């Protein structure tokens, strides 16, 4: 039951509006974005906030392309501005080169990604291929399960990214349409609480004529490798911060969505279903039904895909009899989704011995009904009993149209 006082604070708004509001209360100095479905409403709402004078000390740059959106934020962040963008799919892919650059220069730019499939064929609906394809760019990636989490992730991400020991950019991923266009009750982040929670951005190094510094220098083989090492170190340092900041957020706002991971009915689970994003809600509903029948099924939500929480995942699955990973993406040529591959990889050299199978699901917004999740769980039960027959496969392929 939701506490009546809390319920009173809830409003029914579109997911995009709630996220735009969240970006606003984080007090960005420069926003730069380019419209693309299903992210567009976020930037339209922010534009309206700007037009109404609701974001103080903030410039909105109406760029001519996503490549310039991210590039402008590189310049702005280097001057010491708090920056925000939002994009998806083709827009995110267009940013690719600059994403490496943002991270390499250690600029904590924050961006919402309203996850969408990538073309060809062109498709505007949700899967995670866009963001997953950016996994090696050096950005923190947090995936939200619902609209409230998509909102709450933004101030958390600023706090993590702007930490002097981290200084890395971050993506707040939310499922396109499913979360960006849904109207559901949320608490819009309060300005006062956000100000209490999130300190202003005070970077150590900025572009300033008083103390001239060189950003983005040329590094030869004798220096380049250490830059990469330090970037990796920063990501590792982000691991405990993501956990700590989620707790700090809970203290101030009273909401917790998990740290690096989160569990549902996990402690005694024999079968564990792992995934990221809004599909977790459906999975939990199915798991409730199994639990009602007395079957020990649990859910492992991965909130942080980068940095990848190896230790936490190993610990969470160590007593399970079998694990199934649902990925809304595929690395063509492996027949596997990324979360599946990486989960197997982090278990391989550990003491944990548990069979793991994978399904690559929901491509281009293909609906994932509860029956299909039940089917997946039944398959995993078989794996627990008699071992793996098919390691990884597509879910709900229409064989007749192949």
């Amino acid at each position, binding site marked *: 039951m939701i506490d009546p006082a809390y319920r009173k604070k809830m409003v029914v708004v579109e997911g995009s509006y709630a996220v735009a509001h969240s970006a606003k209360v984080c007090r960005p*100095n420069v926003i730069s974005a380019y419209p693309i479905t299903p992210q567009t409403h976020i930037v339209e709402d922010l534009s309206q906030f700007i037009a109404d004078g609701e974001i103080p000390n903030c410039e909105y740059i109406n760029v001519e392309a996503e490549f310039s959106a991210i590039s402008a934020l590189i310049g702005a962040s280097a001057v010491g501005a708090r920056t925000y963008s939002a994009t998806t799919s083709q827009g995110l892919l267009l940013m690719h080169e600059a994403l490496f650059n943002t991270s390499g220069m250690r600029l904590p730019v924050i961006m919402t990604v309203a996850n969408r499939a990538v073309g060809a064929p062109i498709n505007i609906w949700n899967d995670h291929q866009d963001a997953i394809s950016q996994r090696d760019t050096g950005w923190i990636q947090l995936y939200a399960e619902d609209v409230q989490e998509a909102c709450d992730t933004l101030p958390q991400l600023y706090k993590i990214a702007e930490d002097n020991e981290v200084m890395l950019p971050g993506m707040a991923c939310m499922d396109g349409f499913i979360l960006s266009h849904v109207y559901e009750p949320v608490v819009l982040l309060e300005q006062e609480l956000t100000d209490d929670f999130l300190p202003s951005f005070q970077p150590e190094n900025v572009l300033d004529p008083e103390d001239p510094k060189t950003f983005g220098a040329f590094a030869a083989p004798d220096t380049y490798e250490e830059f990469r090492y330090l970037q990796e170190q920063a990501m590792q340092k982000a691991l405990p911060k993501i956990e700590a900041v989620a707790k700090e957020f809970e203290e101030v706002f009273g909401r917790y969505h998990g740290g690096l991971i989160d569990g549902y009915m996990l402690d005694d689970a024999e079968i564990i279903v792992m995934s990221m994003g809004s599909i977790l809600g459906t999975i939990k509903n199915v798991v409730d039904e199994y639990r009602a029948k007395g079957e020990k099924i649990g859910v492992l939500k991965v909130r942080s895909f980068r940095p990848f929480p190896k230790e936490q995942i190993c610990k969470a699955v160590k007593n399970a009899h079998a694990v199934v990973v649902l990925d809304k993406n595929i690395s063509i040529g492996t027949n596997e989704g990324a979360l599946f591959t990486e989960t197997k990889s982090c278990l391989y050299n550990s003491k944990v011995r548990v069979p793991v199978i994978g399904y690559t699901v929901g491509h281009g917004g293909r609906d994932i009904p509860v029956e299909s999740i039940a089917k997946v769980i039944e398959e995993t039960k078989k794996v627990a009993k008699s071992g793996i027959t098919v390691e990884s496969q597509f879910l709900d392929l229409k064989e007749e149209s192949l």
Partner: protein
Amino acid sequence: MSKTAPKTYITSGHSGCAGCCDAFAAKFALMGAGPNTIVVNPTGCLEVMSTPFPYSSWQVPWIHSLFENAGAVASGVEAALKALGKKDDIKVISIGGDGSTMDIGLGALSGAFERGHDFTYVCMDNEAYMNTGVQRSSGTPFDASTTTTPAGKVSFGNPRPKKNMPAIMAAHGSPYVATTSIGFPRDMIRKVKKATEIVGPTYIHSHAPCPTGWGFDTSKTLEIAKLAVETCLWPMYEMENGEITQVRKVKDPRPVEEYLRAQKRFKHLFTMEGGEEEIKKIQATADWNIKHFGLQ
């Protein structure tokens, strides 16, 4: 230069070739802009030679991001300064090569000018992609031999004339667009200074002969630059709000042949059959400049 020349904010000790045009261009641009300047520099010879980590030649704050995004990065720098209340004191200039400016970065630059950001863009036009080994760009002149438009048995080199970049920038409604040359330091410093003092997006296109890419002695950089102006192949003018307001006159234009003969990239015009005809075409370009810009 005389003792009273303004200070510059890029030190020697960089790894550019002797007689490097980009080094001259950056030096003069900063003399015009002054110390309270943030420099945005796209990928190219200048960026590579001036910042081999942990060293840097820059005595002003400097940022290099990518080859094709300087216009956008400068937009962000300017917007951030505005949002943080620092724009009144600090200038933003971008210094980029012809490749990053006229080719791969044109979209980002166009966006920045159309949006009206308050910054100055300086193009150092050495007429090819020097950093990657002298490949043609849309700034490469007609008949120049480059590594991707080499002269050969059936080719006189680059088949296309230079893109008219200043006209493109003026068409964005820029309040100030000017051409200049590193061969005329005072002219360049004055124009950059003027550009940075004007509010809005301003553009300086500086001709910058490259000894390595064009094939001439490293002691002759400024001489070749002057020759381009004196042969009327490089007209120097200012445009305010789209209108030409000032032109540097050339009293007795010299034949283009003198300019072409001094550079290896045009050598084939003097050895190949039909070269004479080609030289006439280039002379026609100079004649057109004389007429169009009223150089005489």
